[in-house]
């Protein structure tokens, strides 16, 4: 065990897996010599050489697209997309090509590829750097989506992702890169996909979050506790596959639910969570489920981004309102 922040946990997983499996390569913009703009790949090129830790030209579509070719030759590419907002340029390669190659060829060709990318706001970045767009990828059948909220899960889910025979979009909460720390085993372990994590046990209302929204939900639960409300906080960990059983159980437990995420509300993944629960746990519901999200507006300029990102206070308010609903 060692105390690590998110970036360190990610780097530790990359290093471990590259040592264990020589098919694994790391590629992307500035990942090599510089070690990534957030240093997630720091030292890897020095250790593994520039044939395994590869600086690419600035071209997201061919980064994703060539990874599919590389995978077909038996390599296991781990791509860093510098910011999630810039995966839009590679949308067709990710969503239509690598995600569907298995389906299209009935398993003849597959895409064991991991795409790592930071996302989310709160660090005063320029436009696009803070965009949360996990829901846009969720429609792409064939792609898995992992979104760790803490260093332990970051390492375990990344190892699971790299070893997964299918393409995985692995999203990292930028704001938490250095802020979120925790105990992480030095050795090999994986966190299975499709199992949510109970962050905090509670009895009155279930709060569902993932990635950077988990600490917000936790803090809201503390505020709620001061008001005498016991919030049950769960972290989805992976959106695809979704822990259907776990979700239903978590909501049946309290009969009330608040979903928190950083992307806009409209057609966000929170809508899917609510629609699913509404179908599967309707009769346990004592009040309408609520969403706390960004408003349906583009991510704004740094000067006003604090008004845009859901806060613990907003979540706490939603919890209180949900409790007040009959």
């Amino acid at each position: 065990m060692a105390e690590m922040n998110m970036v360190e946990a990610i780097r530790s997983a990359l290093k471990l897996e590259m040592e264990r499996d020589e098919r694994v390569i790391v590629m992307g913009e500035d990942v090599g010599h510089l070690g990534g703009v957030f240093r997630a790949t720091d030292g890897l090129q020095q250790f593994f050489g520039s044939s395994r830790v590869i600086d690419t030209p600035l071209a997201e579509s061919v980064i994703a697209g060539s990874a599919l070719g590389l995978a077909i030759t038996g390599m296991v590419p781990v791509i860093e997309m510098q910011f999630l907002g810039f995966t839009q340029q590679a949308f067709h390669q990710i969503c239509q090509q690598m995600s569907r190659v298995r389906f299209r060829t009935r398993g003849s060709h597959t895409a064991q590829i991991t795409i790592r990318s930071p996302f989310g706001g709160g660090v005063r970045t320029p436009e696009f750097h803070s965009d949360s767009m996990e829901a846009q990828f969720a429609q792409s059948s064939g792609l898995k989506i992992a979104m760790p909220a803490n260093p332990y899960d970051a390492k375990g889910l990344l190892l699971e992702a790299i070893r997964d025979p299918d393409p995985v979009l692995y999203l990292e909460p930028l704001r938490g890169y250095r802020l979120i720390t925790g105990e992480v085993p030095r050795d090999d372990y994986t966190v299975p996909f499709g199992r949510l994590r109970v962050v905090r046990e509670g009895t009155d209302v279930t709060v569902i979050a993932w990635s950077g929204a988990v600490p917000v939900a936790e803090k809201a639960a503390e505020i709620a506790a001061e008001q005498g409300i016991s919030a049950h906080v769960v972290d989805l960990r992976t959106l695809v596959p979704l822990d259907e059983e776990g979700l239903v159980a978590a909501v049946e437990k309290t009969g009330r639910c608040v979903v928190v995420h950083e992307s806009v509300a409209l057609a966000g993944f929170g809508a899917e969570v609510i629609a699913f629960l509404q179908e599967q746990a309707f009769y346990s519901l004592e009040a309408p489920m609520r969403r706390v999200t960004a408003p349906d507006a583009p991510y704004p300029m740094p000067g006003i981004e604090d008004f845009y990102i859901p806060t613990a206070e907003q979540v706490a308010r939603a919890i209180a309102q949900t409790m007040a609903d009959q």
Partner: protein
Amino acid sequence: MAAKSSPPTSAQFLPDAKPVAPVSVLAETGKLNRGAKPGMTKTAVLEALRLMMLGRAFDTKCLSLQRQGKLGTFAPIFGQEATLVGTAMALDPAHDWVVPQYRELPAIIRQGQPMERIALYRQGHPDGGIIAEGVNVMATQVSLAAQIPHAVGLAWGLKMQNRPGVVAVYFGDGASSEGDFHESCNLAGVVEAPVIFVLQNNGWAISTPRDIQSGATDLAARAPGYGFPGVSVDGNDLFAVHKVTAEAVTRARAGLGPTLIEAHCFRMGPHTTADDPTRYVDPADLERWAKRDPIDRVQKYLAAEGNWDKATEETWEQDIAAEVEAAFEAASAHPRAGPEAIYEHVYAEPTPTIIRQRDAHLGGQ
């Protein structure tokens, strides 16, 4: 185009006033150009001819099935046979790869993909997507230019692993306008990937003519902008296409990186069976290009050498027709796919969501 460059400019890189003369070996008459050599053994020429005829026969059969409503939309190769076969014959199917767009039938067959699979694909059967074990081809690509990055990745991976293969990736003049073309050429130039970009300039992208597709006189002229050679070739000339591809293969195997080949040919048929080219193709163009027919040209060459006559042609045509027939019969005998096929191969293991949906669906909900 020359006019475009005036008034005087300091520019060091000027567009050509007119297209370069494409590499040519076998004239339209079926005679070798003065001093030119076929560059293929007699056996290879016969194999190539057979593949070209097979390709055409397969699509002719498909066209008739399609008209009977027994087949979905597809893109026939009519007129492009020499480009496809000339390039494919320069590859070693054991090591080299073919990455197709959707109009590369004989190249795929030459790599070893069973014709039956192709028939199945055209019948709309999901199993038509299966790539036979050990066959170095990628699946049909419907999204234009999206296959080009894959080909670069394949070539790069082979190089990383010190494997001997070279990758030929096919795409059209239309696809060459997509961003993926550029990103791929550029990456290939950087990593010196053993890849051959086969740009089939057949004059059209559906109804869009070549001069609306690009202002460049030669699309092969793009290669130096990525640091590798580009060559313009008569795409209806089997020997010329084979020659420039063989050179590109040699360069790639020697670790010298990519080549861009622009093969000038003409789409003699419809874009796909859903298209009506009489709305936009000038019949005079069709006539002109018909005289340059790639199959005819090789048959004339062989006939002049005493290796081809009407009788042989008839026997071949019968054999080939039988082979095509057999492929379609085998495909038709393939068990039909049911709804369960939708839920298979989405992931290596179905997710709980997929299992729930499948069970509900198959359970009649």
